[in-house]
């Protein structure tokens, strides 16, 4: 069973793709269960044990619903919109390092779709493209509520991208690299006390997570779909699986945002005392270094997913806790609070680096 290195890496890409879809599927279930828990309801419990087959039932329902095209809609773009939303959402998970590397003999498998040295910019680019799916779909529906949702999505994404990018710059000033893998590895060094970036960038993290909520169109910033004002916002006219793709894309975006936050601020696949554990496995349990490293890698993978699930839970927790912002409040928060704060954070980080407090 010898696959060339490219073959293994291709397999990793496929697994990342599958895992993104699986997590998005079960996010719909988790959302309902968490909503039910927070509101003291029962939640989905009919389909399968604990309602675990609910996403499957939803998918069957969505696939068999009527495919509806509104009158006067631009048919090609109407179909293109949800597809684009899905594609851009799925593309961004390609560069996230889900784990270190596994080694079998001479084969080294990096648990990352593709390593490029501008990884963070790649994610940022894909996030900024994500709004096209919403804009095109909303415009092509030929409905004023959809159009309003699309326009809101566009201005919201552009506004919060600036603050997000500025928050990111503070992290990049410390790391000196755009590669997500390098940023992860820098957050843990063998044999010395080393803190995750959250300890050095608390303000930057708060700015980043607020922007992540806005970029993924999650409550309290889900103004583009805002059902109390805009019926369903950009997906008012959508039905069947095209609607499903929009909802799916949102959950994939939440997953990717959670993964990016875990990698940037919470040490990625590192976990405390990993090097001590590896050395203990080698010295006391008599394992080979390679095997011990593989065990650490798998534990790190599990740890990263625990962090990601923690963030996904946080996204849902906030959704069922906070009310929606008004549109002018959203814009004011972005432009007059987050951007000046992010610039202040950059100056603060620069000062602390100059005086050697953090590196």
């Amino acid at each position, binding site marked *: 069973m010898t696959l060339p290195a490219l073959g293994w890496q291709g397999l990793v890409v496929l697994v990342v793709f599958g895992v993104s879809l699986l997590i998005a599927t079960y996010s719909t279930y988790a959302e309902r269960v968490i909503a039910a828990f927070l509101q003291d309801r029962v939640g989905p419990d009919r389909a399968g044990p604990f309602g675990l087959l609910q996403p499957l039932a939803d998918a069957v329902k969505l696939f068999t619903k009527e495919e509806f095209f509104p009158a006067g809609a631009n048919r090609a773009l109407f179909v293109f919109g949800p597809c684009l939303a899905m594609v851009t959402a799925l593309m961004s998970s390609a560069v996230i390092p889900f784990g270190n590397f596994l080694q079998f003999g001479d084969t080294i498998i990096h648990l990352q779709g593709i390593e490029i040295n501008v990884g963070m*910019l790649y994610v940022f680019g894909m996030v*900024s493209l994500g709004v096209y799916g919403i804009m*095109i779909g909303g*415009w092509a529906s030929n409905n004023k509520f959809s159009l309003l949702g699309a326009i809101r999505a566009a201005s919201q994404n552009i506004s919060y991208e600036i603050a997000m990018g500025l928050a990111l710059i503070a992290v990049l000033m410390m790391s000196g690299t755009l590669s997500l893998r390098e940023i992860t590895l820098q957050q843990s060094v063998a044999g010395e006390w080393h803190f995750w970036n959250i300890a050095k960038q608390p303000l930057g993290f708060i700015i980043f997570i607020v922007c992540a909520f806005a970029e993924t169109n999650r409550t309290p910033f889900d103004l583009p779909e805002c059902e109390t004002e805009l019926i369903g916002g950009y997906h008012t006219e959508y039905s069947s699986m095209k609607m499903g793709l929009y909802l799916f894309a949102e959950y994939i975006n939440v997953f990717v945002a959670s993964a990016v936050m875990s990698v940037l601020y919470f040490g990625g696949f590192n976990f405390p005392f990993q090097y001590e554990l590896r050395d203990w496995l080698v010295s006391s349990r008599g394992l080979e270094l390679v095997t011990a490293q593989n065990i650490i890698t798998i534990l790190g993978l599990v740890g990263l997913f625990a962090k990601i699930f923690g963030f996904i839970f946080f996204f849902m927790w906030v959704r069922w806790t906070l009310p929606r912002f008004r549109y002018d409040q959203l814009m004011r928060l972005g432009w007059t609070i987050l951007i000046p704060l992010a610039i202040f954070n950059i100056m603060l980080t620069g000062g602390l680096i100059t005086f050697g407090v953090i590196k």
Partner: protein
Amino acid sequence: MSPLFLFLSFVALLSALGVVLAKNPVHSVLFLILTFFTLSGHYLLLNAQFLAAVNIIVYAGAIMVLFLFVIMFLNLNEETEPHKPALAKIAAAIAGGSLLLILVAALRNVNPAGYDPATFKSQIGMVDQLGLVLFQQYALPFELASILLLAAMVGSVMLGKRETGERNF
């Protein structure tokens, strides 16, 4: 010329033509976004990853969103597109044609300057190399440009600030 280069150039030219020929302004914008993507592909072929990523973020991700935003906001479509008189169309065709003629005439006999494998630096397009050049050789222009952008941003924040006495919705 690699097949990838030919493919990217083909798509780039086709989508660039689409920008001009599309009747619907929204289609034009979408073709322009596709053009930017193919240009990013060219940058990648030239081993300039940073430029490719920034091209996507800035042009495809931000500027074109604003274009699309304005077009949707004004609800421009095929019916509202102004129809220019025939004379203007002929004049534009002649002007564009002469520009094409001059460009072809000027570039017809150009031989691309090859590179010397001994002195060629393959890492020249990488972000750290670019940063070194920007902050060492071109520090002043770079800082001036950044101050301009910062001023624009501060200006927009100031415009967004609520003035005293302004109603609250």
